[in-house]
């Protein structure tokens, strides 16, 4: 099944997808990686809401041109580095996480019933750039452009493979198990 989802994405939207489905997202997504995850969780005055929000694990390459920002490349970063903070982020209402390389079994468990993980092809910075319509805002620039939170308007952002669904299924866990068996052969 392949379809376009508009943000905000509600938990009931998430629950209609299963591992292996392909989706495209249109609307607003927020980039966030290592430092921004820590900052978001400790900031009592967080300038944006995570309720039904879509987080994109990415440290885009952005340059400032006079009064505007130009996104040069914006592929996903390794999601597993954010394993530790993600259950708390999901509790704040995040319903979709885009990244690459997968997340832990504990994170998959914390997504049950309310969030899914979408894999964007790693390293594909220009494919991602093509689907970004504009930079709507930027937060936490004191962390630097790579680690800041970029609020992006996207259109048909994808292809995104549902790699962890809201029913506890994770492609990564399945493959980890089958490859472990082959490793021991």
């Amino acid at each position, binding site marked *: 099944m392949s379809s376009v989802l508009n943000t905000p994405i509600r938990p009931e939207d998430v629950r209609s997808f299963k591992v292996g489905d392909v989706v495209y997202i249109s609307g607003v997504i927020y980039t966030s990686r290592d430092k921004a995850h820590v900052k978001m969780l400790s900031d009592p005055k967080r300038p944006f809401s995570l309720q039904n929000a879509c987080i994109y694990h990415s440290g885009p390459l952005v340059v400032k041109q006079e009064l505007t920002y130009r996104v040069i490349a914006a592929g996903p970063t390794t999601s597993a580095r954010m394993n530790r903070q993600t259950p708390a982020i999901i509790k704040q209402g995040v319903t979709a996480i885009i990244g690459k390389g997968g997340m832990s079994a504990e994170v998959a468990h914390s997504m049950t019933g309310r969030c899914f993980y979408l894999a964007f092809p790693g390293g594909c910075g220009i494919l991602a750039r093509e689907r970004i319509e504009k930079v709507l805002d930027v937060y936490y620039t004191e962390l630097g452009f*790579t680690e800041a939170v970029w609020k992006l308007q996207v259109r048909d952002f994808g292809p995104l493979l549902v790699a962890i669904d809201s029913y506890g299924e994770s492609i990564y866990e399945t493959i*980890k198990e089958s490859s472990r068996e082959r490793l021991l052969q």
Partner: protein
Amino acid sequence: MNNAVQREAFISHTIDALLEAETQLPSDVRSALTSAIKAETNKRAKEQLQAILENAELAAAASLPMCQDTGIPVFFLEIGRRSSIDFSLKEALATAVQRATDLIPLRKHAVDPITRANSDAPLFDILYDVCDGDELSVAVLIKGAGSENASALAMLEPTQDVMSFVLNTIWESGGKPCPPVIVGLGIGSTFDGCARLAKKTLFRYLNEKESAFEVEILENINKLGIGPMGLGGRTTALRVFVEKAPCHTAMLPVAVAVQCWADRKARFRMKL
């Protein structure tokens, strides 16, 4: 040529090499990916590989970095022993990286390793070798953090198995280093020596003739079924390179240098 002219020419060639590496996926890597698509029977794996090739084409056409992680440039300098270089190569490389950061552009992602505060210091590494002749040969390899983080080093005991260590390293990292990866193996030498051997193999071309041992490791890695981006399939690695050096009878140092599919490399030569 006087020193200043020589230095400027070197910086200019280095910037061109950085631009080429960041924006043009080398033909040996493109061929390997194209063959992998044909060999894959897994639909998901084929789709991931197709996206990778499409991204590479778009980046080349737009002359923009193919990946937002513009990485750490690793320079491999082979200095002809009859050449005469009257400027600091390290300083000239730092200047080239700094200028390329604004020109290409490259992402600013250097931090202090302890405070984690952002740093403006140019980020790069240098490997040296001295060779015959009067030329300076420069190769650059762009190393992304995802694959560098998947690399590993072990001081094995001489009776331990190298193959198990390599396979475990690849298994542990799963989809994190952006497979299909290129695996550079350094076996023997010392703690730091094996890491240098491993890193140097990554400057080789994927279509060079393989040894039987390299083929054996590649087949074992691809039997794991991790696949492109860790989503399943037979293409976990495109190539394995092995370099060895003698070691102490009490030791077996092994380093596994992992490179992502975005195996960005370029080279140039200068007569000095």
